[in-house]
């Protein structure tokens, strides 16, 4: 691949800028700063693209252009910035994304060459737009996406409308020795194969399932835990709070939400010196110097960690 490093081009549209871009609409401005540290959230968002075409379509919409006007230079830059961000987040980038990146760069270079060569001479492939094929693919993809939207908007059986319950009429098969023929069966070999595939998939999922502690920790429990911890150790870094929990993504999410909740209740303050700097969690003192009301701050000592039992 020639040319500058992906994403570094132009120097402005970096992974961090993209991150801010995606996250902003989802959270009130007050909380956005805290989100820089919570990579989990980006993970979910970036992971929610169905593939490179989905990501491209997203960028086209975000840039408020029509697909047929595909601004290849801009879109390529932004696409590569997203990939860079995925890399920063240590996401496994599916090979499809990389193939598309190569395609974009190739189209871009062909567009640049065309722009540099004046039309008067050597116009061998004049008239052929290097973006043509990609535009057609995006347009076709978008049509099926709208087909999917149409399907999703239908009144779905089992969600919006309901019918009589299915009965298992397997018992209607004649018993052994019964010669009366049952002529029609609503089964085919494809059903048999499908059932086998279902079992195989289930088995596979089983073998890949991580060992996760079944008892999920409730927000209330986490509030108590954080409160107890901060009663003796304040201020302290978010990372430190997180480190004291078993490594589990859902626990981390609950911890994060408990901090947002405590911030809302004005019981803790979250601070960060600059974007991506560690988040410092500190306990807020009540105004006045009377003893804190019975709000649980002093209830438990340091040792009360319900997760390490």
């Amino acid at each position, binding site marked *: 691949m020639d040319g500058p490093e992906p994403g570094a081009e132009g120097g402005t549209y970096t992974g961090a800028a993209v991150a801010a871009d995606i996250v902003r609409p989802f959270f009130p401005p007050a909380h956005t700063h805290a989100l820089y540290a919570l990579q989990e959230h980006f993970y979910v968002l970036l992971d929610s693209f169905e593939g490179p075409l989905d990501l491209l379509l997203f960028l086209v919409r975000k840039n408020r252009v029509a697909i047929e006007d595909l601004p290849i230079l801009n879109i390529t830059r932004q696409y590569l910035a997203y990939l860079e961000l995925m890399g920063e987040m240590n996401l496994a980038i599916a090979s499809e994304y990389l193939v598309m990146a190569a395609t974009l760069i190739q189209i871009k270079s062909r567009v640049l060459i065309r722009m540099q060569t004046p039309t008067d001479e050597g116009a061998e492939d004049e008239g052929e737009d290097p973006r043509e094929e990609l535009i057609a693919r995006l347009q076709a993809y978008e049509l099926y996406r709208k087909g999917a939207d149409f*399907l999703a908007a239908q009144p779905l059986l089992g969600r919006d409308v309901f019918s009589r319950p299915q009965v298992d009429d397997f018992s209607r098969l004649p018993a052994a020795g019964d010669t009366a023929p049952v002529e029609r069966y609503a089964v085919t070999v494809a059903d048999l194969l499908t059932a086998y595939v279902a079992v195989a998939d289930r088995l596979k999922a089983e073998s890949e399932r991580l060992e996760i502690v079944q008892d999920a920790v409730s927000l209330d429990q986490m509030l108590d835990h954080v409160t107890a911890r901060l009663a003796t150790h304040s201020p302290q870094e978010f990372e430190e709070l997180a480190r004291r929990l078993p490594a589990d993504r859902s626990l981390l999410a609950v911890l994060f939400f408990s901090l947002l909740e405590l911030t809302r209740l004005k019981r803790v303050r979250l601070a960060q010196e600059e974007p991506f700097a560690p988040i410092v969690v500190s306990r807020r003192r009540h105004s006045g110097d009377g003893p804190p009301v019975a709000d649980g701050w002093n209830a438990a000592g340091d040792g009360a960690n319900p997760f390490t039992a």
Partner: protein
Amino acid sequence: MDSASLYTCKDIIESLLLVAAEPLTPAALGEVLEIDDNELIAAAVDHLEDEYRRRNRGFLLQRVGGGIRLVTREENAPYIRRYIAGKPVRFSRAALETLAIVAYRQPVTRPEIDAVRGVDSSGVIRQLLTRELITIKGRKDVPGSPMLYVTTDRFLQIFNLRTLSSLPDIKSFGDLYPAAELPLLDRQVEG
């Protein structure tokens, strides 16, 4: 057709609608009623449909997948979901995209689906197969003989489609919404 036989017809069809877990086709009705007067059956079905609609109560007659069935009114769905207490039917974006492609281009192979979506679709295809929304119908006569997928009757039943041709023309989706008006948030929508 006399009104007495029309009445009897409606009566019996109503009983059958109650018993059937799958849509009743005109052919099945004719067989059970031992009537080969298709018009009589069609008239009875029309009457019933109209009657339930005017009554506007717990259930309606729905024409779906080439047959008829009783379904609850959409307005009552929250109560029924509470009664059934299971997870309501949900589809991921990937599943809906793949279904749309199979529905519009069937019979279609996995490489063809992959090409449209730009990603490997084998996982989604397996999911749709085991949910009985698509099925395998032979193999395509090209190198590697990939399997051909088609939608099932169950697909029509779940998505409330009378026949495959009740799907709107894919080209009509062309300019439904101007690209710029879709909010960022809509990518999160599922199901």
